[in-house]
């Protein structure tokens, strides 16, 4: 079993190499690919806290010492593999069964050992059909909406504990949302967030409305001289500062367009235009990264001054590899999209920078308190909510809320609302 596991694992990794991101550096495939691809085989895993659960614990005010231990390795190092828990070796099995990235051919998994040839053939045909539909979407980085139950049953066959848990997670939310799959590269968290912003925003956030954000790169540059280290996923002839200005301008433009959309069709057209795996999309994603940097700089200086800062800041700068904005940028932010994705604490930073609350459904935390988590969690009432889905805190997909009475249009659960000062219902008998 192990042998088979390894060889399939490698060939899958190969195909990932071909497909993955725009601007991926040679060799490193991103922490996501590493963790998923190579957890096959029981010998690869040593008991230890699961990396993602460590990160989520750091959200809960653990001491600095412990926060240090989660981040002592660099983002893309192979050491992450050693931190997977014994439960993780189940990943080896369902890694074959899942075909998350729609460019990948269907891998035959364990379930197929017991299936009829005709059944397998039929499924491959069906899969090709859906793929050609997807291809017909002309290379969109966010797929069309699909039913969560169907997706979950297709991707998570088998009866490992993990499969059952994940399917349960999908089932729990299947009546409230539909799924839109996001391209599986290291930009996925940013991309999913950007997509939700453009497809939902009803008004510009205060920071975008009230300032001229095109001034910001110059300001940041004069303050902290490290914009020159910025990595773009595309060629640029302009200065980096100038290019960032352009990125921010694009973001403002598109956000304004989205807010002015009068119908869902218009919004969908806008999103199709943007999410085409084109330069513009990457410019917008880089703009988001810049906003995160700028916010980090401001928060850090507030921290130094002793002013009140949100909790996640302490965690952000408690990591050995990111004690200050400069190291945060050099060791983390700079690599987002290339060799690394966003950590949970960085998701908080993203939400905070945009003044949006990211409501993330985390399937592997189904049946725990952390099933649904908010990044950040202190502005749930006053910032718009963007709904995302993750199976593993690595890859993020988009959730589109269905019009159901249980959730409002932003995907926020609707509880019994207080009567706004009106007397509650009283019936005369």
């Amino acid at each position, binding site marked *: 079993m192990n042998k088979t596991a390894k060889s399939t694992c490698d060939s899958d990794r190969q195909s990932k190499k071909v497909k993955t991101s725009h601007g991926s550096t040679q060799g490193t495939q991103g922490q996501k690919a590493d963790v998923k691809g190579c957890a096959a085989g029981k010998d690869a895993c040593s008991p230890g806290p699961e990396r993602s659960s460590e990160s989520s614990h750091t959200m809960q005010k653990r001491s600095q010492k412990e926060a240090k231990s989660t981040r002592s390795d660099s983002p893309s190092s192979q050491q992450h593999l050693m931190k997977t828990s014994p439960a993780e070796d189940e990943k080896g099995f369902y890694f074959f069964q899942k075909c998350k990235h729609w460019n990948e051919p269907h891998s035959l998994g364990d379930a197929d050992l017991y299936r009829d040839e005709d059944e397998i053939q039929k499924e491959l045909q069906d899969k090709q059909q859906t793929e050609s539909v997807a291809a017909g979407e002309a290379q969109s980085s966010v797929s069309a909406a699909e039913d969560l139950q169907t997706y979950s049953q297709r991707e998570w066959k088998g009866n490992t504990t993990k499969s059952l848990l994940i399917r349960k997670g999908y089932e729990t939310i299947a009546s409230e949302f539909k799924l839109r799959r996001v391209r599986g590269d290291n930009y996925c968290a940013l991309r999913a967030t950007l997509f939700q912003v453009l497809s939902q925003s009803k008004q510009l956030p205060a920071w975008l409305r009230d300032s001229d954000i095109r001034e910001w790169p110059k300001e940041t540059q004069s303050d902290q001289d490290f914009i020159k280290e910025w990595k773009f996923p595309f060629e640029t002839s302009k200065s980096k500062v100038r290019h960032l200005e352009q990125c921010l301008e694009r973001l403002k433009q598109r956000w304004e367009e989205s807010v002015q959309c009068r119908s869902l069709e218009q919004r969908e057209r806008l999103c199709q235009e943007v999410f085409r795996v084109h330069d513009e999309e990457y410019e917008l994603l880089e703009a988001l990264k810049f906003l995160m940097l700028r916010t980090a700089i401001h928060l850090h200086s507030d921290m130094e001054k002793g002013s009140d800062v949100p909790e996640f800041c302490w965690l952000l700068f408690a990591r050995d590899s990111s004690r200050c904005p400069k190291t945060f940028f050099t060791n983390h932010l700079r690599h987002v999209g290339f060799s690394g994705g966003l950590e949970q604490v960085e998701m908080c930073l993203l939400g905070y920078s945009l003044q949006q609350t990211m409501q993330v459904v985390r399937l592997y935390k189904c049946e725990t308190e952390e099933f649904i988590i908010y990044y950040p969690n202190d502005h749930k009432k006053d910032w718009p909510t963007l709904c995302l889905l993750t199976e593993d805190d690595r890859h993020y997909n988009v959730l589109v809320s269905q019009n159901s009475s249980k959730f409002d249009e932003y995907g926020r659960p609707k509880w*019994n*609302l*207080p*009567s706004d000062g009106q*007397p*509650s*219902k*009283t*019936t*005369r*008998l």
Partner: protein
Amino acid sequence: MSFIPGQPVSAVVQRIEIHKLYEGDNLILGFSIGGGIDQDPTQNPFSEDKTDKGIYVTRVSKGGPAEVAGLRLGDKIMQVNGWDMTMVTHDQARKKLTKKNEDVVRLLVTRKSLEETVRQSMMQH
């Protein structure tokens, strides 16, 4: 009568038998109810515990069947003809009280003063 997790909820209850009255075509009881699990409990002026989503008497018509039977403003209705009323929606409660073929409803109600009366009489022994 607040809810303390882990402890059984007990209440001193009184039986109230209301004979409905015909007013034109309708059978009336002569009181109004508020509350229910689908309502906002913080608006209830009569409850001790503001998370209590029970059914409360919010009005009693003067001289009506309910007043005559001994129902009082602020009473919490625990049961109606044996049906539980502590965990029902507002509408479910209404339905249990207004069944067309019943002209008598037997309620079990509780009120703060009842508890105090019992406690006092117990202290005297």
